[in-house]
Each structure stands twice: as structure tokens, then as C-alpha cells.
């Protein structure tokens, strides 16, 4: 009795009382399982859209805040010797981590000089690699290219140069001593 009453109240209060029943003529003429079709009501979809909107706002705000805070925080990085750098052959590259777990790439030009860059492509953070035959750094994801000497963008979608790793030679050992994030104006 009480369930009949609650059903009746729900029918009166609901805006969608006929969502899961056949209402149009063609639906009555083709009697298939309509529960499958109407698993998501308009109300449920509305709730989902509002939650999605909230998530997108929080995502945009959070990502922007983190990027801005990271850019403003200036921290001095400790010098770190790069193992195997002295034995690196001219015209070849060596991967290392600096600072912490950030991947970086050390290049030795044919004239023997060293240069080092962050390995993350500035487009969407894919790892770049040294293309020896073309003497440049290339990103395999979206075909971006960087100059092997300066890290400047040669072509493709990257908006700014690669992060530059400052290196120094101390007693014949190559050290990474800092990391410089460069903007699009370089």
C-alpha cells in the first residue's frame, strides 16, 4: 500500500515519468528492450555535465596555478658531475638526470665543445633525441626540431627553446650547475 503511494507521489513529482516507457507511435510499433536505450536520463546527464564543468574549471585553475608557482620559485641547484661525459665521443650524446629525476641530454659537438639541454620537448613534454646525421635534436611525437648548439626551435610545434643546462669543467670532469628555463622570445 505504502509502495503504491510512494510510486504515485513519484509519478506526480517527477518531470520524467515517461522516459522509460514507450511514448511515441513508432516505439509502440517496434517493441524492443527500451531499458537499454534509456539508461541515462536527462537529469542524470545534466548532473554529469555540471560535474564535468566543475572538473574542467578545477583542472584549468590547478594546472595554471602549479605552472605559475613553479615558474616563480627560484631555487639554486647543486652542482652534479655527469658520469661518462669526459669519455663522450665528438658528435654523440649522453642522457643524464638533472636536477633530481628530470631527464637531460648532453651533446658533444664535432669540435669537442659540450652543450646540455632538458630532454623534455617544450611542446608536450615528449623526450627529444639527438639525430646525429642531421646534427639536431628531434622530437618524435610531433616532429619538432631543435638546434644542437643553442636548443632553439628549428621547426615544428614547440613554442620555445629547450631548457638549457649550464655546464662547467672542473678538474677535467663535466658538471651540471644550473638549469635555465627560456621563454618564447629567445
Amino acid at each position, binding site marked *: 500500500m505504502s509502495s503504491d503511494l510512494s510510486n504515485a507521489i513519484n509519478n506526480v513529482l517527477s*518531470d520524467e515519468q515517461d522516459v522509460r516507457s514507450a511514448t511515441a507511435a513508432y516505439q509502440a510499433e517496434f517493441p524492443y528492450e527500451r531499458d537499454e536505450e534509456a539508461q541515462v536520463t536527462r537529469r542524470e546527464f545534466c548532473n554529469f*555535465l555540471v560535474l564535468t564543468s566543475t572538473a*574542467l574549471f578545477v583542472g*584549468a585553475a590547478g594546472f*595554471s596555478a602549479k605552472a605559475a608557482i613553479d615558474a616563480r620559485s627560484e631555487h639554486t641547484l647543486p652542482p652534479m658531475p655527469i658520469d661518462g661525459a669526459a669519455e663522450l665521443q665528438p658528435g654523440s650524446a649522453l642522457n643524464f638526470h638533472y636536477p633530481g629525476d628530470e631527464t637531460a641530454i648532453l651533446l658533444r659537438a664535432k669540435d669537442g665543445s659540450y652543450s646540455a639541454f632538458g630532454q623534455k620537448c617544450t611542446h608536450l613534454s615528449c623526450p627529444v633525441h639527438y639525430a646525429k646525421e642531421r646534427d639536431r635534436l628531434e622530437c618524435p611525437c610531433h616532429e619538432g626540431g631543435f638546434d644542437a648548439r643553442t636548443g632553439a626551435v628549428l621547426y615544428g610545434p614547440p*613554442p620555445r627553446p629547450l631548457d638549457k643546462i649550464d655546464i662547467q669543467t672542473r678538474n677535467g670532469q663535466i658538471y651540471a650547475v644550473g638549469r635555465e628555463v627560456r621563454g*618564447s622570445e629567445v
Partner: protein
Amino acid sequence: MKFETTELRYKRLPAKAPLQRGRAAVWQARLVLLVMINLAQLWILSAAVDAALGHEFRHLLGLVIASGVCWLISLSIFFWWKPVGSRQSGSA
């Protein structure tokens, strides 16, 4: 033999109350608006990611504000722009 079009078949059915059809239209409009706002916010999020990776931080604040405005609009649609309920329509 005369063929009956879908439109004619609908006309034979007992017509839904105008208020019910109006409510359905409002629900539909809410959904369309919310979908459009979601699409705009998706674009804003991708633009924010692009700007952050490119270190163009001057664009970020505007993009976050735009996303917040979209969110407020979707909240206002969700909480205040509702179809008239059955009880209100009965008394009106």
C-alpha cells in the same frame, strides 16, 4: 492504399499537455547549454595547458577566469534555471 506519414500518426495520438512539452523543451535547452559550456571549458583547458608549456603566463589568469565564468553559468543553469515542476504548474 493511402500511406500514413509519421506526422499524421502523431496527430492521431492524444496530444501531450502543452506544459509537459514545454518542460521537455526546457530540459533539452539546459542540456544543450551545458554541453556547449563544457566544450568551451575543454577548449580553455587545452589553451591553458598550451600557454603553461610555452611559458606564456600572462594568458593563464584570463583563461582561468573564463573557465570560472563558464562554471558559474553552468551552476546557475543547474540550480536556478529549472522547468516548472508539476506542483507549481498545478497551482498556477
